[in-house]
């Protein structure tokens, strides 16, 4: 049976069903600054446009041949004022870093400086075509080279593949470099070892590159079990993928020993650099024996997450892997100069073994300009200060909450940039999800939940360095209160959030009967009988 939808969510001017309206119902369904907004398909139409085009002069015969469109597309248009209002209203239903602390562990939601945005919009960067003659884009190549120089120096690596589009694309790049290097020496290895605590992208990437994935166990401290790893190494192991600092928020103390053991067994070491923000300017991955590591410019170097992208994932490579990096590639030449290597000059720069091309054009240039602007603003001293403050903030949260929340690895020493808690001690029936949804009502975005998998009901909190002490103190106050409510079994948490634009959403229904594109309802909007097609 289809479930009638409350009208309040989809068309202004329609009376709200009074039984759902709570206290002080309104006729529009709006609540002061909380404005309900319909879909563009419900308010726009095919005749309206918010763009004035030049008045065409003269007439030319069409050269579309027999391929001209025959029917309408069905795209609604809005005038400019309606468009501004539609998206402004939508924007207000989002939480964002600009509104408050965004403690998603492993995601590094730090402040996005606005100078970065201004620079990226300079016409010389924003309005340049990727295939203009090279002499007309020297400044763009300059940005790539300057950023590449910083990434190489900060990581102590040899070369960098700048083109990967995001972290997972960077992982793929690194694993393909490993595979190309192994194939070049005629060594067909089949297995990549991945710790249980790894990001889901790690095993997915290794599988996509054609490898068999095997788990490496963790020890009681939440770190890679070095002896177990050594015991598994052998001629079939192409390499390991390790996140350092790891997803429990801990630095892998044995990293150098791990790298040495993997190298001795003929394999390579891939490091997931998602958590580089914790160690930037404190230790260089190159000094730990890492062969490849992607850097999420949208995490460590502050380029905006934009509601889920675009990201950017350059991959720094050791001397052993650099020759195989994809084109275009950036590497330090024997004279110390960093050079951009493309298809046409690959031979002259000794880069003939490049495994190929991962994307059209040169990568995420718009992210390069922002990241370089961020790096130059901080300088070598500011970047080091940033990682210090990020780690300080996380440890402050760890120690401010470890008496009310279970911190499984909190006893063994400091954490890095994120503090990990579990749900031990919660009352029967209370879950991490309930606490997280309660956090929404307190005005904060929830932390990363149920990850890493090695801790039951995991809550992974990463404040970043751009939070003030006062902001963190308020967050701690909210968390302490919620932890006590979860331990006491406060039933009101089960139905949180109560103050968000929407209550908990029915995700099971969305998956069971997927409605993934809009279509005209069979009953005219506003008649009170609208039903989600396919729902029920």
């Amino acid at each position, binding site marked *: 049976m289809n479930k009638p939808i409350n009208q309040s969510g989809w068309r202004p001017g329609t009376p709200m069903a009074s039984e759902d309206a709570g206290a002080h119902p309104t006729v529009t369904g709006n609540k002061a600054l909380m404005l309900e907004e319909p879909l563009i398909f419900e308010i726009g139409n095919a005749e309206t446009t918010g763009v004035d085009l030049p008045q065409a002069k003269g007439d030319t015969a069409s050269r579309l041949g027999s391929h001209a469109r025959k029917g309408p597309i069905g795209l609604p248009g809005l005038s400019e004022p309606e*468009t501004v209002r539609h998206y402004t209203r939508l924007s207000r239903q989002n939480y964002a870093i600009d509104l408050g602390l965004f403690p998603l562990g492993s995601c590094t939601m730090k402040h996005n400086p606005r100078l970065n945005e201004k620079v990226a919009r300079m*016409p010389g960067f924003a309005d340049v075509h*990727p295939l203009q003659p090279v002499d007309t884009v020297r400044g763009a190549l300059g940005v790539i080279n300057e950023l590449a120089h910083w990434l190489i120096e900060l990581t102590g690596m040899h070369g960098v593949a700048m083109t990967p589009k995001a972290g997972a694309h960077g992982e793929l790049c690194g694993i393909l470099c490993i595979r190309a290097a192994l194939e070049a020496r005629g060594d067909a290895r089949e297995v990549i070892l991945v710790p249980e605590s790894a990001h889901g992208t790690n095993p997915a990437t290794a599988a996509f590159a054609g490898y068999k994935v095997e788990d490496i166990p963790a020890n009681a401290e939440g770190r890679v079990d070095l002896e177990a790893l050594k015991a598994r190494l052998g001629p079939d192991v192409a390499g390991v993928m390790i996140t350092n600092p790891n997803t429990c928020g801990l630095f892998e103390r044995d990293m150098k020993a791990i790298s040495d053991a993997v190298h001795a067994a003929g394999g390579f070491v891939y490091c997931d650099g998602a958590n580089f923000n914790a160690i930037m300017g404190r230790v260089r991955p190159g000094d730990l024996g890492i062969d490849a590591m992607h850097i999420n410019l949208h995490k460590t170097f502050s380029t905006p997450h934009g509601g889920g992208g675009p990201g950017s994932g350059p991959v720094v490579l050791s001397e052993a892997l650099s020759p195989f990096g994809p084109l275009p590639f950036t590497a330090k030449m024997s004279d110390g100069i960093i050079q951009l290597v493309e298809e046409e000059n690959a031979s002259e720069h000794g880069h003939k073994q490049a495994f190929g091309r991962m994307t059209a054009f040169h990568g995420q240039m718009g992210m390069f300009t922002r990241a370089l602007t961020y790096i130059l603003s901080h300088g070598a001293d500011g970047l080091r200060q940033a990682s210090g403050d990020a780690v300080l903030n996380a440890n402050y949260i760890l120690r401010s909450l470890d008496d009310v929340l279970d911190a499984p690895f909190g006893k063994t020493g400091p954490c890095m940039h994120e503090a990990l808690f579990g749900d031990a001690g919660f009352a029967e029936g209370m879950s991490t999800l309930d606490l997280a949804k309660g956090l929404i009502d307190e005005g904060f975005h929830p932390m990363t939940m149920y990850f890493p998998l090695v801790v039951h009901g995991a809550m992974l909190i990463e404040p970043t360095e751009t939070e003030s002490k006062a902001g963190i103190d308020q967050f701690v106050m909210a968390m302490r209160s919620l932890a006590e409510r979860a331990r006491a079994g406060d039933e009101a948490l089960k139905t949180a959030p109560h103050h968000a634009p929407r209550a908990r959403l029915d995700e099971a229904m969305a998956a069971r009967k997927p409605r993934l594109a809009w279509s005209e309802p069979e009953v005219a909007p506003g008649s009170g009988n609208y039903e989600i097609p396919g729902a029920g």
Partner: protein
Amino acid sequence: MRYLPLTDTDRTAMLDTIGAPSVDALFADIAPAQYLGGPIEGLPLHATEMAVEKHMRALSQQNLAAGDAPFFCGAGAYRHHVPATVDHLIQRGEFLTAYTPYQPEIAQGTLQMLFEFQSQVARLYGCAVANASMYDGSTACWEAIVMAGRQTKRNRVLIDGGLHPHYVGVAQTMAKFTHAEIAYEPPVVEADAGEEALIARIDETTSCVVVQYPDIIGRVPDLARIAEAAHAAGALLIAVNTEPVALGALEAPGNLGADIVVGEGQSIGVGLQFGGPYLGLFAVRDSKLVRQMPGRLCGETVDADGKRGFVLTLSTREQHIRREKATSNICTNSGLCALAFSIHMTLLGEKGLNGLAAENHRLACLAADKLAAVPGIEVVNEVFFNEFTLRLPVESRPLVRALAEKGVLAGVSLGRLFPDADALANGLVVAVTETTNEADIDALCSALTEELA
């Protein structure tokens, strides 16, 4: 340091709470031999906003901006006018600084926008379902090839010569590792898009046929005919579109029988940006294929109070649930570019997109006629949208460089796109959009006349 709110007083108080003597002590797990005691030497220290802006501006000024010259570059990236409203709205912090909408109660703005975006793309492509975007056109194309292999359980990928060579390059690179067999020959520069020869190469082992529409030469292949032949052999047709404005004038690939339609969305709302970030579009004609699709999907549902809302859905296909069995390793989409696309498309609407396409085509026809009159130049295409190929009496690559020195960005030489194919060395791909005016076209014609004289 203007981005770091902690004061030294704060740091001291926080270290007290933690019970650590110093910030350095928090890094005790890093072995002393590897721990850096101070800022890395040889790198500059922090700088003022003014100083950084000045440095970056100087770099930007070493580039010739497209808007400062008669400009005819296309080949997968197009210069269109982006209304000021688009860039203003995407810079609202609630969009710009939000994360992936994993907490739907406080992410309805992003989620509703993605649902609208998916619906716009599906309609534009003539498909049932589109996803919430991919990295760019080239990676979306490869993901479509992988999906076709999964669907058909076949291994041979037949790529038409008209596919953008960078897209081909990505597929060839990835195929080396997945052992897909790629059948590809570079294009022949003639008016005929070569459908017949392509169809002759489809066989019973072919998983998919990949055809760009319009293609790298600017021609418009007969998708319906290719679809029929592909389907008869049990293969899927993947249509690739690098210029979405064209679909304001040309029939949607899904309506012509393409099973998977992918493309680059940069033309609408995103801007050139030296090649990225761009916007991969991905759609399937038949909703039965949805569970094989890669990438994020946003779907409609209701909340506990019965109000309509949106969530990310069908995530059992994705890496964070399925790990090594996922349909793709991709985690990020291109959310902010999707927002820009969706806002621009909403401003245009059906009427605006049709008008924009008509204006592009009119100016391109005008340019083609004027260029055909330049001595020594031949326009290859009989059919095109806003991009066509010239056959020059000389190699195009040095000519393009020479014209750039005169301040004219004449287009993309086929010699640059296909460095190994001598037969293409004299080809020049010229794109014309609404941002091109008649004076620009005249400037290109006279610069070419002079250079070829």
